[in-house]
């Protein structure tokens, strides 16, 4: 069973990369390298250390932004899920943030915070935070009322209801918000490097394109996707570890 799912995953990867290779060989565009060329460029970048230097730059706003978004996002989400007034006050901000075209806001951020790290962290947060806040708030609001009533009937304090019932009950949706937030954060980090100042992976992408080294450009894009997928898998493992029973379905199923 385990082997078959692994086999299917490998097959799926083979189909995608095979198609990529074929499309590169036709070629569909002068600017579209083959899979093998791209992997060779990725290998070269890894060996000469350029890739690591680039990620050292890119991960800074990404990690700081995602951590801020997760902590503030879950806190604000919990609070607005629990308190109607707070919800009315703050939810519109995050709904607007989610709907706003970020690229159009970047000049404004640069004007206020300059072209340094602060602006980039802001871009990551604007991308990552709304979905975390809105998912958390929604999950908290949708806690089955019989569970909270059960807690109260056994004399749970408000804190116990929040910590022992509401948060575990909301955790699957909070984690799915975190996953969406983290992947949005990746988009934000790259976007900020393309739109504000070319540093890190964004720099490799911009620079390689300007000298028509398309293989390196695709290698950089490929590496960021791989990193994002790995990160999401780690997040899933953490969730499994923390809330074992949640993966086993709901009593009302």
């Amino acid at each position, binding site marked *: 069973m385990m082997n078959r799912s692994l086999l299917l995953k490998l097959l799926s990867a083979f189909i995608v990369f095979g198609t990529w290779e074929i499309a590169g060989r036709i070629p569909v565009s002068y600017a579209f390298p083959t899979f093998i060329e791209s992997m060779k460029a990725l290998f070269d970048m890894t060996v000469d250390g350029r890739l690591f230097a680039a990620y050292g730059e890119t991960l800074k706003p990404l990690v700081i932004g995602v951590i801020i978004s997760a902590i503030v996002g879950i806190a604000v989400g919990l609070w607005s899920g629990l308190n109607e007034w707070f919800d009315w006050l703050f939810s519109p901000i995050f709904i607007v943030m989610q709907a706003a075209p970020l690229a159009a806001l970047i000049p404004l951020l640069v004007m206020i915070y300059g072209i340094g790290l602060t602006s980039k962290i802001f871009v990551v947060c604007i991308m990552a935070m709304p979905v975390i806040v809105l998912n958390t708030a929604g999950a908290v609001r949708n806690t089955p009322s019989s569970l909270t009533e059960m807690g109260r*009937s056994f*004399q749970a304090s408000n804190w116990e209801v929040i910590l022992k019932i509401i948060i575990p009950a909301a955790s699957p949706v909070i984690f799915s918000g975190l996953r969406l937030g983290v992947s949005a954060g990746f988009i934000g980090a790259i976007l900020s490097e393309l739109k504000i100042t070319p540093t890190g992976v964004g720099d490799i992408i911009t620079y390689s394109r300007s000298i028509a080294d398309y293989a390196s450009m695709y290698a950089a894009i490929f590496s960021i996707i791989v990193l994002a997928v790995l990160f999401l898998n780690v997040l899933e493992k953490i969730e499994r570890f923390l*809330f074992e029973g949640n993966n086993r379905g709901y009593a009302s199923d």
Partner: protein
Amino acid sequence: MAMPQTNALSEESPSTADIAVSARNVSKNYDNVEALKDLSLEFPRGQLTSLLGPSGCGKTTLLKIIAGLLEPSAGTVHVNGQAVTGPGPDRAFVFQDFALLPWASVIRNVAFGLELRGVATSEREAIAEKYINDVGLSGFEKSYPHELSGGMRQRVGLARALSVDADVLLMDEPFSAVDEQTRRKFQEDLLSLVANENKTFIFVTHSIEEAVYVSDQIAILLPRPSRVSDIIRPTGLREKDLTTIRRDPEYLDIVDEIWTSLKTYVE
């Protein structure tokens, strides 16, 4: 409107019995809707009282007011002579939808009431173990709720309520979400629970047969606004053999009589 008192059935007067819970002139309004109006009712200690009535008659509302989960708009509820201001250690609740924590194992669910009262892990698990055994779920301690059938889930809910050792057990249609065979077994188990544990049971149901089968006292509630229309005490049935009650003419008469009085309120 009120149903004629059946003299044969109400021999024992409530004033002579020891009263565990009493509701006095309780009203409850939701915005402009009167859910309960000036309702007074007494629940004798060590007995099972059913709240029976058509849907929307406020029986669950009354139960939640007794539990301290809802605040009455007027009137008071006393448990063991003390006015109810909120949930207390003297009452435990059994929920219609079981209200089990899906991420917690059976033993943690059963011990959850004790966990909230700050009982140490080893002690509360020992107590939980005993009640898991009592309700017939030993061997399932490590299972998760979704791995159990509906009837087994409600046994977990019952074990949780029993493990906090409250005087009063409040049961909100506890058997309505389980299948018919399980329900019959539950009803028999409930009767032996009432006989063996010295607890007061308040039992909400919409099934006339169930109420007559298990109750020492049946309070019939009529809707809009809710009030107690009649109190029936099928005392004669309690001495009879459990296996033949359902064929007993007295049982059938009481069921029939309650149905006649409720019929007009059922749409």
